[in-house]
């Protein structure tokens, strides 16, 4: 089971790739920041739901 810290680190790397992928597009730095934040929040929210569910089993 991945910890939230693991997921954060993986996301950091992923977002770096995404930012790289969007280089050259018309996205502004702010739009890129917002996108990164939205993706990060999405993944962390899913991971937290799963962790909370598992915690309730213990």
């Amino acid at each position: 089971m991945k910890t939230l810290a693991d997921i954060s680190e993986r996301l950091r790397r992923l977002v770096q790739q995404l930012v790289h992928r969007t280089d050259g597009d018309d996205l502004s730095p702010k739009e890129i920041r917002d996108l990164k934040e939205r993706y990060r929040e999405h993944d962390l929210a899913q991971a937290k739901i799963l962790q909370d569910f598992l915690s309730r089993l213990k």
Partner: protein
Amino acid sequence: MKILLPFNDDSTLFFVSRVKRQLSARGHKCGTLFLTSAGSDELVSKRQLDLFLPGGTDFVASTLGAEMLEIFDAFITCKPTRVVRNFLSDDGYRIRRNRPCFVAFQPGLEFSPEKGIGNRRKFDAIFVNRQADIALSEAMLPLAPKRVMSWGHPYFSPPQHYREDTGGPAYFFAQAISPRSIAARMHVLEVLRALALANPQREFVIKLRHLPGENAGHVHKEDHSYPDLMQGLETCPDNLRVSACSLEEALEKAAVALTCTSTAAMDAISAGLPAIAYTDYVENYLDPMSKAMKGLFAGSGVLASLEQFLNLEARRPEASWLNANFRDPDVIWSELETTVEAFKKGAP
């Protein structure tokens, strides 16, 4: 009618197996054709051939020929391969009178219908999955050659009855390339592990389309198989396992059907099974099929949040969505029979 059913990979083999059963029951004579190419053994395994066509394959060929086809009234496929497209692009052949009516369906859930419809433009009849897709397809296709356009898929028949979740096995229907990333697939696997831990009395089965190593040449090549990823789980409960059984067997044994983006969600609904589709997995933004699945299942009542998925909260599909996506196969085949009969009498 004499009908030829070609296949060239595992998914077309599944289609042929099911369509042959349905059409044979209507009194038609169906021949199966294994359209081989270099590397065919990486597209269909002997295990799959034995499982899905236990009586064996009627014909094996690497190309199509006019003489070989002239004894058939219809040629039905769900995937127009390059061999078939090239064959049909010969206008000299298309004007022959003693040729079968070429009929194309879609292979299953169609996540990008605009891509596949162009490949079907030379067919005599095209069945798209949804009635709403007919207008879209007609707008994309040239007027000539003339063709019959209709809708419906032989897998997607309206449920005759609804089954309740009896607490029996829950089957997760996997898809080879979606979820796409290793992190996303690991997340889904961890969700299934959590379900197994929370429901120790219940079996959770990951239904694989193929065994690891099978179908290595398929266009949808699986890079991160669930059996491989299971090795990375902290612990794997005894009640979480994988199976490469047939879809029919899985649908019969399952008490509830789980998936992310598999076409099997439609099969499960047809079988009256409670079905739950979870598309909000980690890194779903890297997977175009997540968004496409959400679009196709919008208004179905089958899409679930992670909380609902973990609580196995299945809802019956909405009637309006069912009516737009599911069609009685008897109606489809009856329409097909009329089309083929008219074609044989010279209709375009």
